[in-house]
């Protein structure tokens, strides 16, 4: 999962697009996924994300991300599915008792929620994998007029995801060396076993943030107006891609409101 916020250098069409275009694509996918309820349509949206990853040449790197998202969606479905009692019963885990009843509405609803979560989350790693952080900051500040400290805070929090992953790995190693078990079968014990990992992670993260703040201040962060050495241009191809995406999005919504795509 360390690839979640890491730039993966490739010479692809997707990489060359403006970050603004990719942000628009990501935003459009999120909007569409909120309207659609049919798991098949949402699966179609996810397929389009996979195709973009393929076009960007980063599909191999994205596999662990997709696998992780599928796992979380699976858990999400599992926690919800037995609590929706409306609709026709498809099967029960313990026949005759009503325990673990799964209904058609429950199944469709949970699958849609799981698929929606995947669509909303999956475009983001591709945006980050194909966009350099400095370009993203420039676009957020220059084009979207977001104040620099906020834009910086946003991208820094993303930048730190892989760092925290590495930190967590070190912490797991340190606690495992003291015979700490994470694979406890008892759910409560398993949950409690997170404490020896969470507390050191929190402490080291706060220390890291403090060190970073000092280091930034000593290099003049927040003093006066900033200028950028490089700017990311919004080219004709970006206009073309955004227009196509907008047309496709409007068409999909029109079909949705006509009752064809649900």
């Amino acid at each position: 999962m360390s690839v979640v916020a890491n730039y993966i250098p490739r010479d692809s069409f997707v990489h060359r697009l403006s970050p603004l275009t990719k942000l628009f694509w990501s935003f459009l996918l999120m909007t569409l996924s909120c309207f659609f309820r049919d798991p098949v349509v949402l699966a179609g949206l996810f397929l389009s994300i996979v195709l973009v990853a393929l076009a960007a040449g980063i599909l191999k790197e994205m596999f662990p991300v997709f696998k992780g998202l599928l796992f979380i969606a699976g858990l999400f479905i599992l926690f919800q599915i037995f609590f929706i009692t409306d609709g026709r019963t498809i099967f029960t885990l313990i026949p005759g008792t009503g325990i673990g009843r799964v209904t058609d509405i429950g199944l469709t609803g949970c699958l849609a929620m799981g698929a929606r979560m995947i669509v909303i989350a999956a475009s983001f790693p591709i945006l980050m994998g194909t966009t350099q952080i400095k370009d993203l900051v420039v676009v957020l500040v220059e084009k979207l007029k977001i104040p620099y400290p906020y834009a910086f805070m946003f991208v820094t929090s993303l930048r730190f995801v892989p760092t925290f992953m590495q930190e967590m790995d070190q912490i797991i190693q340190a606690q495992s060396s003291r015979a700490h078990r994470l694979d406890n079968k008892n759910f409560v014990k398993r949950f409690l076993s997170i404490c020896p990992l969470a507390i050191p992670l929190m402490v080291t993260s706060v220390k890291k943030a403090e060190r970073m703040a000092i280091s930034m201040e000593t290099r003049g962060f927040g003093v006066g107006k900033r200028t950028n050495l490089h700017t990311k241009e919004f080219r004709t191809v970006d206009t073309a891609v955004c227009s196509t995406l907008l047309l496709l999005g409007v068409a999909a919504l029109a079909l949705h409101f006509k009752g064809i795509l649900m």
Partner: protein
Amino acid sequence: MIKVADLHFKYGNIDLEVLRGLSFSIEKGEFVALIGQNGAGKTTLLKQFNALLKPTGGSVQIAGLDTGKSTTGELARKVGFLFQNPDHQIFMPTVFKEIGFGPKNLHLSKAEIDHRVEEAAEAVGLSAFLGQNPLLLSKGQRQRVAFASVLSMKPEILVLDEPTTGQDYQEGIEIMEMVLKLNQLGHTIVFVTHDMELVATYAKRVIVLSHGRVLLDDSCRNVFYHPEILRQTNLFPPQIARLAQMFAQKPALFSRPLTVEEIYHEILNLPESTPNVCCS
């Protein structure tokens, strides 16, 4: 005690091998330093000793246990691992509980845990701090807490990854003196450091790693008197050894001293007729 046979290792899908066919044995009670430039594979090798990393080729055996088939938890009774950064493990509200975390994981009785915590705290000079929050201690004290938490598990083998990093000279020496005491009690010690003075003072045997291979594996004295080989991996012998080697280019004055004490005694024993080689 530790048997490494044709050990190969690479991380995940990265094709580059970090360890490329290492073979050596470490007997019970040895005091071994692992040295080499950054990226030579020292820490990667250390992590093989308690199955934090598993071989991708060859094998590592710890007291007869194959690390490829054992878990870190299983090996925790035999191998104690002191990490470079104590903050990666400290999470308990008191020093007492922090030191007792490992023994508790070994399912020892409360009386035994209490006994081990007090013993370990005394060994590292933290008896007066048992009720304090370990996160509020100084870096040196936190490293001692981490060290005590390893000691409380009473491992036969102690693996130390740069144990003196971030410590002042005195703190570093104190930690190494504790390690030496444990070695004298029969514990096997393997440590990684970039401090050659420390190696010269404490290690009996030195394994030099370079690009995932063993470049030298010999007694401390023999290793440091091979400067031409050490230079291949950006290592330099301790200052006393370098000084003695400079004099060796003149009529050999000294045998092969490594520490200030050794060269001091050699100077005291120099014959009075020794020529003034420094200024000649």
